[in-house]
């Protein structure tokens, strides 16, 4: 993903995640201490060592509380309980027979490491490092005191020191390096915003191109084919409507067709319009599907359908078409079938925009898909599928145009 965490959030989140990691280490080493103690107990059961088991359990409980709360007070409490547990473990280590001493001391080491992994409350690197160092100091002092109390000479244990070094290196390296690369995150974020705007512009341009195609290009095509002489009423109305669309209309009003829709919505309007210009439409299927779309989706579907019917009238060589409505749980589909001349979709010139802009562009802009089956001489079928009410729009669902032969 291109959008990572910005510098202002990264500091707090990364510190918190490191603290979580430290607590996981503490959990594992406390588990190891518990297992080591159990193995020792199985070898050498001694009631004097039982308080160590209780202290390990109490420390685990404190760790759980620290994870939930994370306040300095709980962290300090964790260190105190840990120090007592470490002192107890160190002081009873001498009660084991000499061959078991290293194993008993491992329990002490594990507790010391768990203290270093206190994680530190808050988001400040200094305080978290400070708590880790305090954990090391408290653990070491408790271990030394316990050994001395048992009358044994304290020994050097490198593991707690190594753990503290690990914590300090992780925190300080992260703190130092996070100023570096993350400083460019705002420009990546800005690029993502620009991309969203570019996407919006692309949708608007597709809508504008479709509108241009439906209005001006359609009328110009009608002018080229109309006979000379007085303007027909239809052509005159069409040119006036175009002038209105070009000069006066605000394209931000999405329902650009104006007027009152039929009670079954703009799709039935379009079918009635097509009948008026001499196309015989056979509407079948589930008419109830007309009410299962958002207004903007129904509008886009109606405009796409209108373009398909114009194509039938102008290019198919037939004066009839079948329009079938049907729906599924998350979609509504309209199929337009004609038994006209058909076409070869591969041979369509790149500057013929009817299907691309007025149909495909519109339908895809509302999250729908278009599929075309056409064979020269055998007619054309076009399936428009749009999301129904209540369905979430998917990101990218464009389907390719198909051609049968």
């Amino acid at each position, binding site marked *: 993903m291109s959008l990572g965490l910005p510098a202002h959030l990264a500091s707090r989140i*990364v510190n918190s995640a490191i603290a979580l990691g430290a607590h*996981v280490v503490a959990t594992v080493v406390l588990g190891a201490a518990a297992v080591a103690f159990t193995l020792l107990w199985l070898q050498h059961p001694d009631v004097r060592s039982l308080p160590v088991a209780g202290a390990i359990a109490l420390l685990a409980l404190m760790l759980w509380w620290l994870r939930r709360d994370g306040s300095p007070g709980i962290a300090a409490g964790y260190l105190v309980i840990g120090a007592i547990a470490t002192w107890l473990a160190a002081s009873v280590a001498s009660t084991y027979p000499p061959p078991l001493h290293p194993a008993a001391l491992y329990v002490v080491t594990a507790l010391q490491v768990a203290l270093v992994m206190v994680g530190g409350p808050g988001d400040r690197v200094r305080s978290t490092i400070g708590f880790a160092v305090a954990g090391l100091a408290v653990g070491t002092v408790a271990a030394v005191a316990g050994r001395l109390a048992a009358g044994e000479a304290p020994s050097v244990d490198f593991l707690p020191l190594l753990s503290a070094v690990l914590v300090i290196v992780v925190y300080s*390296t992260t703190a130092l390096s996070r100023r570096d690369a993350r400083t460019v995150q705002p*420009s990546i974020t800005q690029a*993502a915003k620009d991309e969203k705007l570019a996407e919006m512009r*692309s949708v608007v341009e597709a809508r504008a191109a479709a509108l241009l195609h439906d209005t001006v290009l359609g009328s110009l095509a009608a002018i080229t084919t109309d006979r000379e*002489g007085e303007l027909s009423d239809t052509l005159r109305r069409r040119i006036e409507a175009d002038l209105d669309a070009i000069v006066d209309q605000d*394209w931000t009003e999405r329902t650009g067709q104006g007027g009152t829709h039929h009670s079954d919505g703009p799709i039935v309007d379009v079918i009635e319009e097509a009948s008026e210009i001499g196309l015989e439409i056979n509407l079948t299927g589930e008419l109830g599907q007309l009410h299962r779309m958002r207004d903007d989706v129904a509008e886009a579907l109606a405009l796409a359908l209108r373009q398909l019917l114009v194509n039938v009238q102008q290019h198919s060589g037939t004066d009839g078409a079948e329009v079938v409505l049907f729906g599924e749980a998350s979609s509504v589909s309209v199929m337009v079938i004609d038994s006209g001349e058909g076409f070869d979709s591969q041979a369509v010139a790149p500057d013929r925009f009817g299907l691309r802009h007025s149909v495909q562009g519109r339908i895809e802009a509302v999250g729908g898909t278009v599929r075309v089956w056409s064979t020269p001489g055998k007619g054309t079928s076009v399936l428009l599928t749009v999301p129904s009410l209540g369905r979430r729009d998917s990101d990218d669902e464009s389907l390719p145009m198909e051609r049968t032969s």
Partner: protein
Amino acid sequence: MTDGISLQRADPLGTLSGRALTLTAAAAIVLFSLVFMVAAREDITDWPAAIVGLVCAAVTAILLVIMSSPKRGPVSRGWAVWVLFFGIAGHLASVVSYWPAAPRVNDWGPYVVAVLLLALVPYRPIRDILAFTAVLSVWVVGITIAQESVQGGAVAGLAAVMAVTPVLALPLAGAAFVMEILRSVRRWRINVLTAAEDEAQRREAEITRAVQETRVGILNRDVVPFYSELISRNKLEATDAHRAAELAGAIREVMLADTQRSWLDELIAADDDRQGGAIRTGVRDPNGLARLMNLNQRTALRALINTLREKPGGGLVGVTLHTVGDGCEAILAAVVDGHRYRIASRLRPYLAVMGAVFSEFSYEIRADRLTVRFCYDRP
């Protein structure tokens, strides 16, 4: 789900920031093995094995440094396996070098394996890290039990617990860290994209008006006078059909040019008529492949191009896109000023993001020229 994507892919800049830790881990692995070996030199029974162990630790450290280089794309599973293989080999060699000594708390093998797993955490998905951890835990337990079986331990099984604890603790901590960051990255990403979406929606009317003005400008010049004339004379003449066909052709031409212009053309269209020495500026994309990039890929490329063009007048940038097999390959070339090191340092974060979102990513800075090659799938 947070286990299917690596931190390197989810937050490339964060991973780049944290590379210092990977380098520290690489250094620590060599240092651990060397110091521990010297400290326990009196117990070594097989010096060649000890040296082999040290060499393996050094090789695995070098592999870590190479695989995490910002010049490379995301780390593959194969690389991770090679890194771990040399870590395991080093562990085995160190055990052989002390054989038949009993396992001790300062055997460096398990620590090196644990640090390796931790170092790999940002570069591989969590499920891979957990699988590696499980396999290596079994390995470490097995080797330790084998060592114990020769000498016999005072507490059966304790040595295995001691050896496996760091191998479990460090990668599990790393996995928890990554899950926390991934959750935050996802939340942040949703917030940013929602805000961007909202802003785009808010500006829809403004954008629509701008588009309308452009279109209407063209139509006002040619179509409106023609239509007005037709309405006023209320009749079609012989020349009108020809004129209408001409106008339709001109409009189609503009629409075709619009259709064929991609977001990338919009971004670096200004370079079209400038020459940058050996660089052909502008976009060469005869098959319209720029449209096939997803949002992440477009964002990363846009950010890089914006940075390259930041200097006064805009830097010279050229992008060529073509198909390769089932996918797409792009080559970006740009003229860059300044010292090579400074350029690399300035562009590294952007290139890291590019590497995270494109496949087969590579780049080269030579003299005053940056060349970036990257691939992406066709949906």
